[in-house]
């Protein structure tokens, strides 16, 4: 029998964490690393597992690596607080790791619930993400946004989807939008990239056409339209902030 650890890193996820951990309670180890939550996240998490650790925030990759260092299982599933493992997915994972696969990692399709609708197009679905891996063969990279796990060796795919309850309100979405675009711009800036009016105007347009037309976001209704428009602005914000980084010295007025 192979063993599995599910790792979750959290910060102010009281609305999410209970349901998230309930869907993962079948795992051999359930490890939660919380940073700076000011709500009931930690108390709720403790109802589901003894392995809740409160740690300072060091970055996504660092905190996940810390979670990893607390595991002893053969396999690890990285889960975000706003994601849910469904029954069929749990069963599939269990069966799979017991079958001693040759792969060292598995990608899972992720279905996102955006403003009250399951998004099936827009390039969001299936949007495979690498989440299940052999502990001995995976490590988290240090990118600022969309950080991920790197696995040595071959990777396969799971059949069932992971559910992703993204932002419940547009306000939450835009708050995250703001935070992530700052990080993304810093990362581009760090790599020596520069932006001008052309990339600020053309890249968002390209993003919109890609998601709404090519990836058929129009099939996702008004929610799909909203998502594609917001994503275009996301790209605009990223390049606007990149321009700001290279043209404005920090204002302390």
């Amino acid at each position, binding site marked *: 029998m192979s063993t599995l650890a599910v790792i979750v890193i959290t910060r102010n996820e009281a609305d999410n964490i209970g349901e998230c951990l309930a869907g993962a309670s079948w795992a051999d180890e359930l490890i939660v690393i919380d940073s700076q939550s000011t709500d009931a996240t930690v108390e709720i998490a403790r109802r589901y597992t003894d392995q809740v650790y409160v740690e300072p925030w060091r970055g996504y990759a660092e905190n996940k690596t810390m979670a990893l260092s607390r595991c002893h299982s053969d396999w690890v599933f990285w889960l975000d607080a706003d994601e849910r493992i469904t029954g069929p997915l749990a069963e599939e994972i269990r069966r799979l790791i017991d079958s001693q696969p040759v792969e060292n990692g598995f990608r899972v399709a992720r279905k996102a619930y955006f403003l009250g609708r399951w998004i099936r197009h827009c390039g969001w679905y299936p949007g495979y993400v690498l989440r299940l891996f052999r502990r001995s063969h995976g490590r988290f990279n240090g990118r600022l946004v969309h950080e991920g796990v790197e696995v040595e060796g071959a990777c396969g795919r799971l059949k069932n989807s992971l559910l992703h309850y993204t932002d419940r309100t547009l306000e939450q979405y*835009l708050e995250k939008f703001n935070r992530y675009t700052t990080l993304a711009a810093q990362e581009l800036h760090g790599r020596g990239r520069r932006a001008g009016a052309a990339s600020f105007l053309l890249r968002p347009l390209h993003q919109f056409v890609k998601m709404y037309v090519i990836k058929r976001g129009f099939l996702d209704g008004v929610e799909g*339209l909203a998502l594609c428009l917001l994503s275009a602005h996301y790209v605009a914000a990223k390049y606007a902030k990149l*321009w700001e980084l290279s043209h404005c010295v920090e204002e302390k007025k």
Partner: protein
Amino acid sequence: MSALSVAIITHNEAARIRACLESVSWADEIVVVDAESNDETVSICRDFTDRIFVRPWPGFAKQKQFALEQCRNEWVLSLDADERVRPELAAEIQRVLSAAGPCDGYRLARRSYFIGRWIRHCGWYPGYQLRLFKKDRTTVSLSRVHEGFLVEGRIGELLGDLDHYSHRSLADSLEKMNRYSTLEALDRLERGRVRPIDFITHPLSAFFRKYIGRSGYRDGMPGLLLCWISSLLTMAVYMKRWHWQRSTPAEQQAARERHW
């Protein structure tokens, strides 16, 4: 010469309040109403005035109203912590108050600093603000977003500029965009159903109105980014209205309570 009170409301403004107060240190009285800051705001203000009132945040309009009520002079200048009165404007205000002109209130032109540039177009400038008025002629309007003063009587305009340092960075502007669009969406919730095409037409027209109609292109890249943020704000207002229109009355009520 009529005496002047300056009314300022603050919350965690330690970084900016000193320059603001220095620009009006010539006034007869400075009234600060602080919404329980947990930084150095209040102690900085003590260097300039004893008339400091600390009270919980009751909402924008009510706080402004309270500050106005505390003023002891005939004329009041209402300032935000991120604004500075330029010397020319200060001289002009003093001239106006000593001459006992025909007006009961004055609107001030405000120039705003945005990511490295004084914005001269985009519909931001002159952006007249009714800020100088006779206390007994003035009330505060209760709209959630465009709070303002209602002055009974004749209104004039002054020539000098008020400097406005409201946008510290694009991230700061986007945060404000998020907050204002929520307030505006709540304000306009009952104004008819939102159609998806509104997500496209209104932001585009907001952009072109500012960038072309109000010559935003003459403000360079900052002008372009400013017009973009305002079109994003318009889009966010329509999307938030659309989303709330489909949510339950209880959810709408909860949103209102969070933001009142």
